[in-house]
């Protein structure tokens, strides 16, 4: 009975949390898509500076990581493929697993580490120093001012970063292909492109938009629900990272399954 209670309690808490995220995303979407028609323009300037921070500044580290991931994928695929003398399939193996799965996922994880945590810390600190309250007393909606630009920046930049990550991953695979599998750079790239369908890339990008929305919702929600004190900001940041990683994987499962059944028709 106690166990049933606990399980029931956790499920309710989890659903309530998802509800809170959905409510935050909904309010942010209102300010992005509805409020502009009532004379409250979107803060484009803030969205662009967020996009710089979230997207452009993430490029170096993301490039490095996804290049290595591509290389690792090639090595792992080759380990099995060379038994069949099928090393020329390395290119398609890397291309498909990068664009369909690992490109969006690795990008999301890098962005969680860089930006999801930063959102929670920034908004949490603003909460502690009463800056959120100050916004409200100045009749400025904190969601409109702080959260909506972040959602817009993430929903646009995550797919962009994902495309970049896909390319860097393929490049990483190409390093192996050229060094070990008798490819030339041009031939490797051509082999990758031949292996890909538009569908592979598009499903990856749809997932990455969903990841972006999820990461922003969790980061901002954790920031806004920070209690008083510096310690709480730290806890909110940690929670934002852990919950974001979990929810991104969760969203990934749902969408991958969805795409699987839709494309199987």
């Amino acid at each position: 009975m106690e166990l049933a209670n606990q399980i029931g309690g956790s499920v309710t808490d989890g659903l309530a949390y998802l509800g809170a995220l959905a409510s935050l995303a909904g309010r942010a979407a209102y300010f992005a898509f509805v409020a502009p028609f009532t004379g409250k323009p979107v803060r484009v300037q803030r969205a662009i500076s967020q996009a710089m921070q979230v997207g452009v500044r993430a490029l170096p580290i993301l490039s490095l990581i996804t290049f290595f991931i591509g290389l690792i994928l090639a090595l792992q695929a080759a380990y099995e493929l060379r038994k069949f003398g099928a090393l020329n399939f390395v290119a398609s193996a890397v291309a498909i697993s990068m664009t369909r799965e690992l490109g969006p996922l690795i990008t999301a994880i890098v962005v969680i580490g860089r930006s999801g945590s930063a959102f929670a810390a920034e908004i949490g600190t603003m909460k502690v120093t009463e800056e959120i309250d100050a916004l409200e007393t100045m009749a400025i909606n904190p969601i409109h001012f702080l959260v909506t630009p972040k959602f817009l920046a993430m929903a646009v930049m995550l797919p962009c970063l994902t495309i970049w990550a896909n390319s860097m991953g393929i490049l990483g695979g190409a390093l192996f292909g050229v060094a070990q599998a008798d490819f030339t750079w041009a031939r490797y790239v051509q082999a990758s492109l031949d292996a890909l369908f538009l569908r592979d890339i598009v499903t990856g990008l749809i997932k990455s938009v969903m990841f972006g929305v999820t990461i922003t919702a969790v980061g901002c929600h954790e920031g806004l629900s920070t209690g008083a004190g510096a310690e709480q900001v730290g806890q909110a940041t940690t929670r934002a990272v852990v919950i974001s990683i979990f929810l991104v994987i969760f969203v990934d499962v749902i969408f991958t399954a969805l795409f699987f059944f839709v494309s199987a028709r």
Partner: protein
Amino acid sequence: MDQAGNPAVSSGPMISLRNLRVSYGEREILHGISFDVMRGETLVILGGSGSGKSTLLRTLVGLEKPDSGEIWLKGKNIAAISGSEMDEIRKKIGMSFQGGALFGSMTVGENVALPLREHTKLEDSTIEIILRLKLDQVGLSGYENYMPSQLSGGMKKRAAVARALAMDPEILFFDEPSAGLDPIIAAGVDELILELKKAFHMTVIVVTHELASAFMIADRMVLIDKGIVVAIGTTEEMRASTHPRVRQFLDRIAEPEVSQELDYLQMLTEDIRPGRGAAGKRSA
């Protein structure tokens, strides 16, 4: 019905509180507060830590929703109005927070100009002039391009006042204006509040526990203790008061020492009133 029964009359009080009750979660902080704030006066809300004075201030500016009671401000009961109506009222009030609450990612100038850019359609050049004027009023001319982190505590507070003044508010709220400042800087902030009052005939509401500062700026004072109004009156009336709680506060007499564990428990739980359901039961 008392004389504040029709608070919308323009000659009446600026703000009227009627039996205001506010809770955090299940714990009631303010147990029925009633008083008036007159137009153009400086009212100081005094009280110790945990007395509920900050909660009262947060409720007055609409950051907390009361459980029951009324707050009449500019003819509207802000305890029961919609968010957009509250936003209209907020454009007419200014609030200076304890730590300044300046936005760390913006310069002092951008901070002060923010409400103007948000709520007015003024040209940039006009905003620039207003900005200079406001910074000049608080003695921070030439600091518009500094980041808040480059300012000292007193300067941050002045910048926060400039931001609160940006929309030419009718009512100015201060949360602990002298907290964390050395006595000289704190006196400077008090001086500033007096100057603003003289120059603009603003209604000023200050929450503080600093007695020296309170007596310097106040026209009238309210002493809040454990969520109720203990005393209200002019500075002279407060000085002459014989109410034990007022005397204790003004004469800075320490609470009787806690000798017994049980006393301590009682002290911790005394403001949790029985009969309020779970909160009362849990602490019992």
